[in-house]
């Protein structure tokens, strides 16, 4: 995975901190809870300095009790607050699974009562962190109607989408790719802005092949696109940004233009984002296709610790180039 992004400006992690800070300044009903987020400033320091500014009533350190404090987020949201829950690593979100999928996700459907809350945490691999600190669990949550699922791929989107998530009246799962935290920088607008949820972004325009991707794989896709260009293949890169509900139009429009589609994602292969998008393209864009839809993803396995294993596990630029080459034959 490469990150040849803009090296000036605001880092991905600072963009997230800024979004939280500015939203908390704007709306007193917003508060954050999670483990070690107060004086310590969070495991990755996203909330460094927050407790001094906003106080312990709005930056609440929690004991290790994900099921409890995610459920408390639902309760507070139903009482008119706008809670933001930090899970220390996205991997630990499974410890609060039941409250998310049964309580938060199904509330509005049954009662028309809104649950405006955000659950955010660092996801993703590439840091030799092994099976329990590297997962990309967005696929699990994208399967649950009632939740919105966001994985931003750039600092601009990280900030704008987090603001949009906080202002949204639904439970939103927001995964921050920790590999990008300090590796990606971008000059951000000075004023307030949001990025709409459920809107994909064409990060690079091209004519021959579409890569649909998100998260840290956006950088892999862009690098593959640059290298394909050297061979005269023009690649369009679509960054989903929101995993669910999906922006079908942007995907279908791109495939209508290029006639070829690659799904590139870090989550495991089967029954995931790639399968869903392939199905959408097959159902609604079939007549535009000139070749098979190809998935380039992690394999159906846990994420291993050892460097050669993890490198094998993660989709690499060469894997994407091989898929591009394969499609060039059509």
């Amino acid at each position, binding site marked *: 995975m490469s990150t040849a992004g803009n090296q000036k400006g605001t880092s991905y992690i600072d963009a997230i901190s800024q979004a939280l800070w500015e939203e908390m300044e704007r709306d007193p009903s917003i508060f954050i809870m999670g483990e070690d987020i107060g004086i310590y400033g969070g495991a990755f320091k996203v909330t460094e300095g927050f407790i001094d500014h906003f106080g312990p009533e709005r930056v609440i*350190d929690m004991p290790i009790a994900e099921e409890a404090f995610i459920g408390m987020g639902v309760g507070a949201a139903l009482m008119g607050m706008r809670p933001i829950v930090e899970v220390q690593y996205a991997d630990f979100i499974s410890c609060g699974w039941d409250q998310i999928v049964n309580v938060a996700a199904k509330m509005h459907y049954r009662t028309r009562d809104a649950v405006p809350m955000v659950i955010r945490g660092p996801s993703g691999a590439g840091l030799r962190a092994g099976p329990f600190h590297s997962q990309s669990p967005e696929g699990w949550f994208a399967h649950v109607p009632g939740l919105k699922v966001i994985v931003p791929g750039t600092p601009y989107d990280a900030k704008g989408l987090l603001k949009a998530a906080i202002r949204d009246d639904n439970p939103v799962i927001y995964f921050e790719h920790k590999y990008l935290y300090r590796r990606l920088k971008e000059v951000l607008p000075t004023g307030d802005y949001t990025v709409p949820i459920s809107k994909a972004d064409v990060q690079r325009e091209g004519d021959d092949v579409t890569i649909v991707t998100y998260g840290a794989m956006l950088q892999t896709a862009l690098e593959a696109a640059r290298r394909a260009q050297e061979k005269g293949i023009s690649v369009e890169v679509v960054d989903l940004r929101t995993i669910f509900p999906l922006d079908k139009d942007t995907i279908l429009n791109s495939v209508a233009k290029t006639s070829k589609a690659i799904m590139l994602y870090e989550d495991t292969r089967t029954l995931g984002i790639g399968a869903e998008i392939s199905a959408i393209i097959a159902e609604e864009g079939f007549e535009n296709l000139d070749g098979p839809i190809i998935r380039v993803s992690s394999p159906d396995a846990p994420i291993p610790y050892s460097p050669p294993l993890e490198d094998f596990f993660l989709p690499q630029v060469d894997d994407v180039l091989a898929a591009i080459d394969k499609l060039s034959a059509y």
Partner: protein
Amino acid sequence: MEVKSLELNTQQLMEIYYFMRLGRAIEERLELLYKGGRLPGAIYLGRGQEAIEVGASYALEPGDMLAPTHRDMMSQLPRGITAKEIFTQHYARTNSLTRGKGEDNYQGDLKRGTFATVSMLPDFYPVAAGAALAFKIRNEKRVAMTYCGEGATSVGDWHESINVASVLNLPVVFIVINNGYAYSTPVYKEMKVANVADRACAYAIPGAVVDGNDVIECYRETKKAVDRARDGGGPTLIEAKTMRMRGHAGHDPAKYMATEIIDLWTRRDPIVRFENYLIERGLLTDESKREIINRINAEVEDAVRFAEESPYPEGKEAIEDVYRG
């Protein structure tokens, strides 16, 4: 079956001393390697916890099961896990117990009576209770023991498993190492009870607080609980009071911990205390101590070299072993 007695003999005392010293030497080496950027992953050091780490697990017998957690590498030494296995695991080599798949201290060997546990806390409280359930169903005189930190006792699974183990009267010993902090969070922000062990009454099982820096006390109290479990007396909750002497993980300078506290607990160093105990009884001299430490240092250096010279797994093994068969 033959079990250890409550009173430790000379050979056992010296074995315990060896494990405590070996544990510390391994950790000191890991710390250096980590700081030198030699390890791919993280380290979670249990320095200062040697007494409970070794003392409790030493009370188990072959055939019993131990489920430690992220900081409890040293508890695995009495179960037969070796320095070489610990370093190959950290170095992510193909000959490690997890063949490069698992990280830092999450290794084990069912045959030698340790589980390869996971990060999610305290996921092996229920699993240890499940091992005990199997022992009970099959009428085997075996015991399961599990460790976690006081921070992990805030999780529902902790309470659920102790309650069920009590209801089913399972042969399991629950150890909580109260080392003052869960990551950056001090105990007073984790719970209102004065002692984790006080919660035992909520499950109608025996609970005990031990001095977590006194290895003899750690052993004796745990040994009584192990014997009780083996004899059909059900679970026990043991809380060891100690201090985490390093940051949460290798990257954490732990600026939130007062140096006075660390100084205080440095004076209570469990190894120094045990050495004084051994010296008083004529079991250890400066000379024999030097000899033991030299032997251990050589063992550790040998293990580091062995790990560094061991190959990595091949990339394609990443997709192997997801299923049996």
